[in-house]
C-alpha cells in the first residue's frame, strides 16, 4: 500500500512504529534487560576479601557450590527450594478454589453485600508486614490466641512457628489468607462479564445449579483461571515479607523461602556472587513456568474456538 504514497510520507510511516515503541524499549532495556545481564555477569564472580580487592572470576563455580550439599549455602538451598515449591503450589491450589467460592457467594444479591465483599477483600489491602504481625499474635506459643483456645478446649497446644513440621504450613496459611481476597476480585469480574441470558437458557433446558456451575461458569472462567494461575504462582515466589515477622526462616530453614534466603544473604558483600546466581536460577524457573503455561493454555484455547 505504501508504494502509492509520496516518498517522504513513506519514510515516516516506516519510522513511526519504531518511534512509538522507542520509549518503552529504552525503559525495558534500562530497567529490565540491562540489570538482568548484569546479574548473570556478576553471578560468575566472587568478591575479594576486602573492598579494595578486585572481584575474582570463578566461572560457574557459584552455581556448582549452590548445588553442592556439603557447601555452607548448597546444604541449605535444596530444602529451601523444595519449601518454596510447596509454598507456591499450596497457595495456588488452595487460594484459587476458595477465591472462586467467595466470588460465587458475593456475586449474589444478599443483604449487606458491600460488607461481605469488603470483609473478604480486606486482608488484601493490609500490608503483608501488618498482616503478619496479627498472625504472629495468633500463632504465639505461650500467649497466642490459637493456643489459648486450644488449651481451653483441653487440646495440646502447637508451636506454630517453632515446630519444624508445622512452620511451613503456618507461613502458607498467612499467604493464602492474604491473597485469596485479591484473586476473588478477578473471579468476580469474570463472573459479571458472563451474560445472564446463557443461564436463563440453561435453566429453561432444565440445568440445575451445579450443572450450570460446572458446564457453564467454570469453562467460561477459563481465561481468568489461566491468568490467576500464572499471577498467583509467580506472586507466591515473591511474597516473603511475613517471614521477617513470623520466623525469619527458622527453625533450621524448614520455614524458609527462596527470596527470603536471598534477602538473608545480601547483608554480606561476601555473598554477592551467590546472591546473583540464586536470582538467575529463580528468574529462569519462573520464565520456564510462565512460558510453558502460556503454551499449554493458548493451545487449549485455540481448540475451543
Amino acid at each position, binding site marked *: 500500500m505504501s508504494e502509492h504514497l509520496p516518498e517522504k510520507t513513506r519514510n515516516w510511516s516506516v519510522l513511526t512504529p519504531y518511534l512509538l515503541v522507542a520509549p518503552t524499549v529504552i525503559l525495558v532495556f534500562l530497567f529490565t534487560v540491562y540489570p538482568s545481564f548484569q546479574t548473570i555477569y556478576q553471578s560468575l564472580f566472587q568478591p575479594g576479601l576486602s573492598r579494595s580487592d578486585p572481584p575474582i572470576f570463578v566461572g560457574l563455580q557459584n552455581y556448582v557450590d549452590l548445588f553442592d550439599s556439603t557447601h555452607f549455602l548448597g*546444604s541449605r538451598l535444596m530444602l529451601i527450594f523444595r519449601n518454596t515449591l510447596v509454598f507456591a503450589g499450596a497457595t495456588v491450589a488452595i487460594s484459587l478454589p476458595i477465591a472462586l467460592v467467595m466470588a460465587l457467594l458475593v456475586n449474589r444479591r444478599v443483604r449487606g453485600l458491600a460488607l461481605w465483599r469488603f470483609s473478604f477483600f480486606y486482608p488484601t489491602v493490609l500490608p503483608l508486614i501488618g498482616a503478619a504481625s496479627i498472625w504472629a499474635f495468633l500463632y504465639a506459643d*505461650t500467649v497466642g490466641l490459637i493456643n489459648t483456645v486450644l488449651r481451653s478446649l483441653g487440646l495440646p497446644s502447637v*508451636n506454630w512457628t517453632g515446630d519444624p513440621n508445622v512452620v511451613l504450613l503456618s507461613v502458607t496459611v498467612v499467604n493464602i489468607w492474604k491473597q485469596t481476597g485479591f484473586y476473588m476480585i478477578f473471579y468476580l469480574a469474570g463472573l459479571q462479564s458472563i451474560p445472564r441470558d446463557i443461564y436463563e437458557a440453561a435453566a429453561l433446558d432444565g440445568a440445575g445449579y451445579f450443572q450450570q456451575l460446572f458446564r457453564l461458569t467454570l469453562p467460561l472462567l477459563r481465561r481468568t483461571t489461566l491468568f490467576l494461575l500464572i499471577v498467583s504462582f509467580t506472586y507466591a515466589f515473591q511474597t516473603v515479607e511475613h517471614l521477617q515477622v513470623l*520466623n525469619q526462616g*527458622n*527453625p533450621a530453614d524448614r520455614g524458609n523461602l527462596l527470596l527470603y534466603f536471598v534477602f538473608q*544473604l545480601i547483608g554480606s*558483600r561476601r*555473598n554477592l556472587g551467590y546472591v546473583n546466581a540464586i536470582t538467575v536460577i529463580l528468574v529462569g524457573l519462573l520464565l520456564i513456568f510462565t512460558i510453558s503455561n502460556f503454551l499449554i493454555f493458548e493451545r487449549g484455547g485455540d481448540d475451543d474456538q
Partner: protein
Amino acid sequence: MMRRTLLMLVVLVCVLPVAIGISAQDDITLDFYFPTAVDGPIVSTIEGYVAQFNEANPGITVVPSYTGSYTQTRDTIVAEGMEPIVDVAVMLSTDLYSFIQEETIVPAQSFIDTMDDPAAFVDDFFPAMLLNSRDADGTIWSIPFQRSSVALYYNADLFEAEGIAVPTNTEELIAAAQALQTEDRAGLLIPVAGGFPTWMYQAFAAGFGQPLTAEDPSVVNFNSEASLDAVTFLTLVGTSAEDGGYGVGPAGGSAWGETPTAFLAGQAAMIYHTSGSLSNLLNNADFTVGVAFAPSGPEGPATVLGGGNMYIFDDGSKTQEELDAAWAFVEFMSSPEIQSDWGVASGYVAARQSAWDMEPLASRVEEFPQYGVTRDQLDVAVMEFSSYDSINIDGIVNSTLSGILSGEVPLEEAQATLDTAQAQIDGLLDAYR
C-alpha cells in the same frame, strides 16, 4: 486574627530552615545512624542527647536518623555506591571485622591516642565492655554505647513463697524450674526459638567451658565438647520428662518477643533474656522481679555480652575536621554523664564505671538493686561471637542450632551436625588464615 497567626506560622516554618541553612553554612554537619533493639521511647531519648551535643558544640550539627534494626542499619551502610558514607553509626559490636574488611571505619584508637590522658579514658570502661571493641592486636575500633548481657530474671515472690534459693548453676536452675512449674506456668523460658538462638547459646557454651570465639577472628569453636554440652542442655530444657528431658519449658524454646510477655503474665517462673529488658520488666510486673547472674554452667554463672557500639566511618572523602567532630560526638555519647542517664532511660548497662556514681543512675541502683546485678555480672561475661565473615558464620551457627533445638535433628546426631557445620565454617575462615 486566627487566620493571620496561621499565616505567620506557615511563613515562619518555610523561612526558618532557610535561615538556619544560611547561618550554618560553615558548620560541620554529621550524619548519625542509630538502630533500636529494646522497648521504650528510645528514639526521643537519643534525639535529646544529640540536641544537647549540638547546643554545647556550636560549629557542629549532628543530624540523627533512626534506621530500624541493627541489620537494616548495617545493610543501609554497606549498600554499594553510598557516598559519602555516614559519619557516625551505632552498630553491633560484632560487626567489627565486617567493617574492617569493608575498609570503611576509622579506629577509635587513633583519636584516643591524641587525648590528654588516654589511659584514664580507656580504664574507665569496664574491661568486659571493650572485649568486642578491640581487634586481635589490641587496637580499639569502636566505643561501647548500648551494651547488654544475658541475664536470669525470676519471679521473686514465687521463690520466697516456696522457700527456694536462687539458682547459681545449671543443676540448681533445673531443680528450681521443676519445683516451680505448674499446669499454667513454665518453669523456665529460654528464648532460643525463631530469630537468633546463637546469643543465648553462647552464654551456655561459655558456662560449659569454651566460648564460641576468642580474640583470634579466624577461629570459631563450634564442635567443641562444651558446645555439644550447651546445645544438649538447651534441648533437654524443652524435652518432656517421658522423653528423657527436663521438661521445664516449651519444646524448641520460647520466642524472643513472647518471653518477657509470658513472664509478666505469670506464665513463667524464670526467664533468660537481655539485661536491656530490665526497665520494661520492673515497670510492668505486678510481682517482685528478681535478677541474677545467668546460671549457665555446671560450675557456676556465665554470660555473654551483646549490644551496639559507636563506629566512625570514612570512605576517604572526610576531612580531619569532620573526623575530629565525629570523635567529639562519640566521646560525648560515651561520657559518664550520658551513660548514667542512658542506663536509666533504656535499661542498657552503662559502660563507664564512673557513670554508676552519678545521677540519675546512682539513685536508681539504690532504689532497684537489680540494676547493680547486670553491672556486677560483667565479671563472668565473655566476649560476643566475633570473626571474619561473621554474617555467614552466624548464619551457619544459627541454622545448625535451630535444627538441633527444634528437634529436626535428634540429639544423637548433634555431634555429627556440629562437625559438618564446623567444616563449613573452617572452609570460610581458611581464606583468612
